[in-house]
């Protein structure tokens, strides 16, 4: 296939999350033209000429001008297409200006592939297929793992839409399997793992920190799915056993966790840090002995991958696709989800390892990251996916 692929990467907002931005940059270096649609969170410019930003500012006036511009272009030069889309939208009662401001630019630019990052919006974009655009959907996190379990309407939307999607990108094998419950054809799902920019970690050394007490760190916003409530209960068990530790949470705590810390008498042992830069997070991880991921749900958590690349021991729950990267006792440690006693005893076990054992695990961890989670692998994997449809 020699033709330059025109790929729209759609997450609803520009710029998107770190890993989606990495994908955009990577693909633009591979003879692909990338078009970004959606609302502009802030002024965004890319060095690559292969990335076209066709987003709109999120105020009414900008949206109005933007809509007018594309309405005019379509009316003058692609009148038939516009009429066809208008009829489709009318039939779905999605004919208001808010919808058109999203859809018209896509119709005008007609990418070869329209790649949606979040499943909840999938039924809004099925129309692109009527214009020969291939629809690709990423299977990520909560949108697949729990939202449709708690929301039957959403599950039904998925069941109606997933069989129509041309191809899926799954962030893990586990989430691929989960999506088949809603009618996604397993043969149309490619697992492409999240990739890291390993240059960021090339200076990481494997020296173990010399902390007086075990320093454990978790990174992530205080959402219930991150399982901090279980981590705090586990640390309470450790406290009751007179085990010495310091636990740092980067990303802040909510009222529930704040209350739990106070009530369990953990305040002297728990350090809460709100928002810090990527570099500072890496420094904090580096100076800790163990990165803990107490989550109940994840695709594959980037923070664990980054810690492994950074030469750090990791302890994760077996949620989502975590076990596709972390193998217990070999390149990190794994515990069952929602299990505080197992968490506590595994922390003790890790703290009792010899330095040699720790070094071996760190070496193995870095190896799997290099084998499975590089940026190049991610970009190549996605490119193959696009080219296969």
């Amino acid at each position, binding site marked *: 296939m020699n033709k330059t692929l025109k790929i729209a990467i759609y997450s609803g907002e520009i710029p998107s999350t770190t890993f989606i931005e990495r994908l955009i940059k990577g693909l633009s270096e591979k003879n692909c033209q990338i078009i970004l649609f959606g609302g502009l969170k802030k002024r965004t410019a890319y060095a690559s000429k292969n990335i076209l930003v066709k987003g709109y500012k999120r105020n009414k006036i900008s949206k109005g001008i933007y809509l007018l511009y594309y309405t005019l272009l379509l009316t003058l030069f692609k009148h038939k297409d516009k009429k066809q889309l208008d009829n489709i939208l009318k039939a779905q009662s999605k004919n208001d200006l808010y919808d058109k401001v999203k859809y018209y630019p896509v119709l005008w630019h007609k990418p070869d592939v329209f790649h949606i990052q979040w499943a909840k919006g999938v039924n809004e974009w099925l129309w692109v297929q009527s214009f020969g655009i291939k629809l690709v959907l990423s299977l990520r996190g909560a949108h697949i793992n*729990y939202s449709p379990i708690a*929301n039957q309407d959403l599950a039904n939307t998925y069941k109606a839409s997933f069989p129509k999607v041309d191809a899926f990108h799954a962030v893990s094998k586990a989430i691929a399997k989960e999506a088949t419950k809603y009618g996604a054809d397993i043969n149309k799902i490619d697992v492409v793992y999240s990739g890291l920019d390993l240059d960021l970690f090339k200076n990481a050394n494997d020296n173990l920190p010399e902390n007086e007490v075990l320093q454990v760190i978790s990174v992530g916003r205080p959402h*219930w799915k991150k399982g901090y409530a279980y981590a705090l209960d586990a640390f309470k068990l450790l406290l009751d056993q007179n085990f010495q530790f310091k636990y740092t949470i980067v990303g802040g705590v909510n009222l*529930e966790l704040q*209350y739990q810390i106070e009530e369990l008498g953990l305040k002297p042992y728990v350090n809460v840090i709100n928002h810090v830069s990527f570099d500072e997070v890496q420094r904090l991880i580096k100076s800790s002995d163990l990165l803990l991921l107490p989550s109940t*749900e994840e695709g594959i958590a980037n923070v664990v991958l980054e810690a492994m690349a950074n030469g750090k021991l990791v302890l994760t729950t077996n949620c989502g696709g975590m076990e596709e990267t972390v193998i217990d006792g070999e390149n990190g440690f794994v515990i069952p*989800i*929602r299990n505080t006693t197992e968490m506590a005893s595994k922390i003790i076990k890790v703290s009792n390892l010899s330095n040699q054992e720790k070094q071996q695990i760190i070496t193995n961890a870095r190896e799997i990251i290099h084998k499975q989670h590089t940026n190049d692998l991610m970009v190549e994997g996605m490119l193959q996916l696009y080219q296969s449809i």
Partner: protein
Amino acid sequence: MTKSNTYTQTVGLVLSAAPGYSETFFRNKIRGLQANGIKVILFVDYPSNDSNDLNCNIVVAPKFDGFINQFLNSIIAILKAVFMTPKASLIHLKLDKADGLSFKQRIINLTRNQYFLNHDLDWLHFGYGMLASNRENVAQTIKAKMGVSFRGYDLYLSPLKHINCYMRLFSKTIQYHVLSHKMKEKLMTQHISEDDIKVITPAINTSTFSNSQRKEIPNDTLQILCVSRLHWVKGIHYLLEALAFLKRDNIDFKLTIIGDGEEKERLIFAAHQYQILDQVTFTGKLPQSQVIDYYKSSNLYVQYSIQEGFGNAVLEAQAMGLLCVVSDADGLQQNILHDKTGWIVPKRNPKALAEKIVEVHRLSSEKKHAITEAAVHRVNTDFSLEVQNKLFLEFYKG
């Protein structure tokens, strides 16, 4: 008592919204006071459609949200301060100044609180602790006594969210009302005199919630009920974890949770991951008559809260003749007498909860009967609306 008095006492009750039909606590309090010749004026932020039957004057606070509301209502409040309540307004400003408030804050407080100042009250009683924030000097300004109720969340959690939010409040002369002895103890740690704190527990209508129509439920199925907002303070995720232990041990059960809230997705996902979702029903919020049906058709009530002012639903469940297992959170320790009217399990310990549920389930019918009898008797004697009314009358006499 008050009937022999020619003077009519007036109590101003400050609430965020006028109490709707389901809010037994405030409705009963208001009715009880009125029946004893006390005039009640409600000061609310939002009116409520189903509070028309309360037969009391409802004063709705002016709105200060958005530029136009803020501008217009500030002007109106300042005009009122100058022409209608100049003396009171001056006192209010002076008292706020004595508390060390900035000029700007004093003006804001004066405009926000203006709607109180033309009322002649004997008592100004704030229904929740946070409602008294920036209104600490209103009662003294209008020469009324000040009452503040704490209900749980406002005592235990609001201070974590808003650091030092009660610092000024606790320095004032106030009669406090709390729901349990535990809350009283907590308040006393803030150097508040024991004499200024009255415990008046919630009460229920014992004729609405009565065990006379209980169905006999076969003993082999464990029908567990929990009536609760889906909020983390209610500890439902621990209850689900406890039930995962029961599932592991092949103990058959069904759990019904009545109530709605922000944590629904979290709890459904937890039940899913514990592989008990097909044994758990989330009914959402239900009208009282349907809740009563569930009380009748269940054989165990569990309230495994992390924090609980008192727990009205536990009183209802006891009155309906249900066996109750609760956590040791705050007021629940008073709500249930351990091993006498139900059972108390340490909080955040799902394994202990699971063991207790199984133990209770396996008790002899005689033992179960003895417990429910004692619970029904205690609720009817100590937690009736009449008892509550009497205590509130004493509160305002004091």
